[in-house]
């Protein structure tokens, strides 16, 4: 187990290291950052001044090492547009995205696990079909359309929910549904197949023969086993959601990391952009690491092979 953990930690470290290089190069090699920051219609001398002021005239490798060196000391650089330290900007926006992610995942689990269990208990019935069609329909519906649809129905037509902002809990309902919905098909399918397998197992038959209530058999003896792989899938899906929240946050004007990224991209605020790229990548790498370790802890077969 120790060897397994060390191996996974090493891989995660390498992934984060390479990702930091990619995040840096993406921002510095896609065009001229100085020209982008100087804005349209800037003169050549303006651009040269910006280049020198921010040190873009130094070799890339030096700039990268400088960036990483400062990162390791907790200095994420400075937003030239907001005139704030990037750390403070991030601290302002991270809680919103974290709340959105957790709520979206909660919604996804609350919808997909019961549906997956029901579909497995009654395979090839109406419930099974409905949950299958929900997944098929969901795959064809772009998230921004789903979000706009929700907005129209609950925000404009029924006027039940606020359509923009993040000041109250009610503001998070539609964004969480719109974001979490896309994690449901995968979780549902995994729950369904896990339940189908475990309900055939001997210990479930024994539990039934003991005369336990169906509820107890399903939850205590069935779901408890079927849920193991779902735990790690949920962690990975949460990582996907953090990366995908940019569309949802932009639509609902939720001032999270995704919204900040979109704004920063438009004003070429490169220190913020590269910090967000790295932050989301690190969050994803850590979540997959946690998923793998959880899997290994819950299922001994994985850490042996």
């Amino acid at each position: 187990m120790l060897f397994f953990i060390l191996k996974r930690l090493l891989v995660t470290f390498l992934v984060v290291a390479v990702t930091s290089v990619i995040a840096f190069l993406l921002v510095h090699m896609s065009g001229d950052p100085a020209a982008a920051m100087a804005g349209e219609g800037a003169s050549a001398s303006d651009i040269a001044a910006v280049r020198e002021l921010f040190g873009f005239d130094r070799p890339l490798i030096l700039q990268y090492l400088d960036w990483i060196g400062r990162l390791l000391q907790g200095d994420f650089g400075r937003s030239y547009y907001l005139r704030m330290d990037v750390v403070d900007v991030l601290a302002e926006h991270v809680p919103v995205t974290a709340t959105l992610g957790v709520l979206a995942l909660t919604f996804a689990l609350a919808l997909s696990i019961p549906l997956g269990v029901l579909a497995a208990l009654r395979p090839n019935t109406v419930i099974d079909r409905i949950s299958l069609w929900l997944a098929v329909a969901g795959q064809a519906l772009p998230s921004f359309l789903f979000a706009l649809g929700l907005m129209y129905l609950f925000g404009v037509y029924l006027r039940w929910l606020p359509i923009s902002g993040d000041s109250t809990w009610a503001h998070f309902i539609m964004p969480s549904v719109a974001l979490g919905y896309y994690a449901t098909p995968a979780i549902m399918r995994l729950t369904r197949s896990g339940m189908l397998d475990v309900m055939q197992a001997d210990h479930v038959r024994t539990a039934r023969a003991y005369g336990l209530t169906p509820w107890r058999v399903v939850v205590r003896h069935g779901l408890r086993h079927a849920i193991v792989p779902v735990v790690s899938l949920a962690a990975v899906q949460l990582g996907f959601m953090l990366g995908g929240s940019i569309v949802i946050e932009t639509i609902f004007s939720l001032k999270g990391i995704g919204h900040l990224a979109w704004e920063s991209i438009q004003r070429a605020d490169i220190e913020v952009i590269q910090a967000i790229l790295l932050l989301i990548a690190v969050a994803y790498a850590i979540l997959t690491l946690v998923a793998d370790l959880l899997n290994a802890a819950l299922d001994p077969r994985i850490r042996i092979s």
Partner: protein
Amino acid sequence: MPPVTHAPPLQIAVSPTRVAVGRALRHGSFWVGGLIILVILLAAIFAPWLTPYDPSIQDLGQRFVAPVWAEDGSWAHPLGTDGLGRDYLTRLLFGARISLMIGFLTILISGTIGTAMGVAAGYWGGWVDLVVNFIITIRLTLPVVLVALVVVALIGSSLSLLVMVIGLLLWDRFAIVMRSATQQLASREYITSARTIGSSTTRILIREIMPNIMGPLIVVASIELAHAILLEAALSFLGLGVQPPNVSWGLMVAEAKSQLLFRPWMIAVPGAALVLLIFAINLVGDALRDVTTPEGKA
């Protein structure tokens, strides 16, 4: 001695491709999905001949003309016009061109990259496999929408850049599926036999491996086609994908966003077109998965 059963020789002679094609033609969702895609494809190809209007010429005297189902609508503009007086049906038809073109060109790029990496990892294994796996992990760690937005915004949006960026981002599923498909073949007897009689690696990869992973390859291609079209729509929706004067369905939704309150159909029309196209591609993809899976393994 067990009784000898004689299989009819004709059935053995039928090639897997013929079997798959035959099954596809008897598959309901293949027909439905295929027909929808065909209609959209024809509409995209013949768009300039199907409509008298130009998708980007503005007519400010004809702003927000109501669609034909509204009381004051007319057949002159069946879907009405947008805020700049451009015929909405015309934009819808021309939008299909961009969506399909970006989708197909993208999977050409991502399919080539992903298949090359996956087949190499599956065939050689060892350190090649390790390296490919690491690259796949890196790719999965990068948030697709964000990376695409950053590159497009900093370099400056153009259709060819959009295709390149999406193609370079969406190869991961190709690589993962092709890797495991090749792994399953690599230890088969006929591959060993081919090697024994002195076939070159190139010959084995092209003549023995490739034909036998075409099934999963086509299925992944259909999934990724839908994925690429959705990503283009999302980028265009965020204002950093397809740029005017080009039209795309995602861009149409973005432009109509401010009309959510008064003219929701302006979002619903390009939205429905997008959903229909993706749905049809998924239907065909599911059908292809059914017909390319060997008998009894479905």
